């Protein structure tokens, strides 16, 4: 069984991201509207969490860096991450049926070269494709997770043609 990721809204609370691990355990992150991240672990076969911790934004960033890998920790300090966070923008973009991207691969469209923005993930139905390669075909209805500077995101949206950010 592979890792499954599901992101859902919890209106009035924030966003819930559920990771179903290969061994059946589940990790749930609730990113609350006030910035706090709550982390729950539900062991396989159990119906309620056996572990809970609440992290503030700084703690969540530090732990995130550590989880990415120790080699990144040396080069990206939290203050730098703050700077990056201010510079970077992230947008979920739903591809419309008449979009220029429809049926074409990421490589074919030269998205990064032409807009400066990068597609870091694709949500297709219930399936999440993290870090899609240049051979990945974009389909109508795909939810693209795009990062870049604000102006890159704007060029991306222009290049995409028909899209929706209110999905």
């Amino acid at each position, binding site marked *: 069984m592979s890792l499954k990721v599901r992101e859902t*809204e*919890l209106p009035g*609370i924030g966003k*819930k991201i559920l990771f179903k691990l290969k061994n059946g355990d589940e990790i749930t992150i609730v990113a609350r509207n006030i910035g706090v991240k709550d*982390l729950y672990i539900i062991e396989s076969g159990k119906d*309620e969490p056996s572990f809970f911790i609440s992290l503030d934004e700084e703690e969540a960033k530090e732990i995130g860096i550590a989880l990415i890998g120790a080699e990144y920790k040396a080069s990206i300090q939290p203050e730098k991450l703050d700077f990056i966070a201010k510079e970077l923008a992230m947008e979920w973009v739903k591809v419309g049926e008449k979009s220029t991207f429809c049926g074409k691969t990421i490589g074919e469209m030269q998205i990064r070269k032409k807009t400066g923005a990068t597609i870091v993930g694709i949500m297709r139905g219930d399936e999440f494709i993290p870090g899609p390669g240049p051979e990945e075909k974009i389909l109508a209805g795909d939810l693209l997770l795009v990062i870049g500077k604000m102006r890159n995101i704007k060029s991306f949206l222009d290049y995409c043609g028909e899209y929706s950010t209110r999905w």
Partner: protein
Amino acid sequence: MWGVFNKVVEISYLKSAVLFLLIFAFAYVLRRFPPVLPFILSGFVAKFFIPSDEITHLSLFDRSAVFILFFFIGLEFSFEKLRHMVNIWIPGFIEFLFCFLLPIPFFLKLGYEITSSTLLALLIYPTSSVIFVKLILDSKRAGFPETEFLIGLLIFQDIVSVIILSFVLPLHEYGEVDFTNAFYLIIKILLVFVIFVFLLKYLPFRLFDDIAESDSFIFFIWGIILFVGFLSERFGVLPALSTFLLGVLIPEKSKMYERILKEFSVFRELSIGLFFFFFTFKLDLDKFVIRSDVILLVVAIFVVSMITKIPPIYIGGRLSGLDRPQSLRGAFSFFVRGEFSVLVIDFVNDAVIKTAGTIYVFLSIIFGVIMFILAPSISRILRRIR
């Protein structure tokens, strides 16, 4: 002469200031109490010291609290979010059937006519989203598997309730329901929905990004909420419906949405406090009747509202893919009623229903919170018995 006039005004305004301090004192001292209960209690206590008719200038706070509260409910619990919540329509309809439609014939049997029976069913149908979300956060259960399902149900309930209320409450206010009144009301509500859909489709929200970044954005948003609320009141449409739809209108991925949610949440807290405070502060105790039929009605409402909640939530939970313990935990966590029930009581003229409804809201908050806390243990015990 001016000196005397000023003194009168000052005393009245001073009393208002004391009210705010009193609300704070109750909320602070009783901070371990169930959410919103300190506000309800402070309103009840305050009315013995300061008669509500002496503080007429606070009516703007009172009315705008309703507008802002329902604006925020619309903002967070929109149709758009409901559309993306998986498998919530069937459980929502099952719960609507059990908790709203089924109790109506029961109240008719008790001798209440159709409008009163519908109002009583509305009193017990919606769980309080304000209190429930607070309980979820306080008890650290946001990441529990059933929470997503329960929040989905809350959205369903809120949308259905606000629509039904917008029909039933004005009709109840007219006194006698006749065809002309009903026809005009339906036309007015349909018009509100047509305007809403038109704005949702054609209003270029990106134009508002600049406004949202302005320092004076607060004046814009306050002005719009009050304008929509009072305008709909003027035309006999329930302001809660219009301000709810106004909240729904604001696109989730917009600067306006982000700014309102991040910076104006303090007004949400203020409006929740004032809404529940004024509920008891404005109560006319002369219209309160404590008789055997009131007690019987309280017992009937309470029992029906609790019994009808468990099966639909359990069935709905199972249909949504939750396992038995999770569905049970959800069913026992969903008893607490609040803002919608208060809105119904505010409109009711019948002394018996008003008294019974007020007592019921008190009881349902206390009992609902206790059951919410006990729900995980109850679910574990029932699992062992099986």
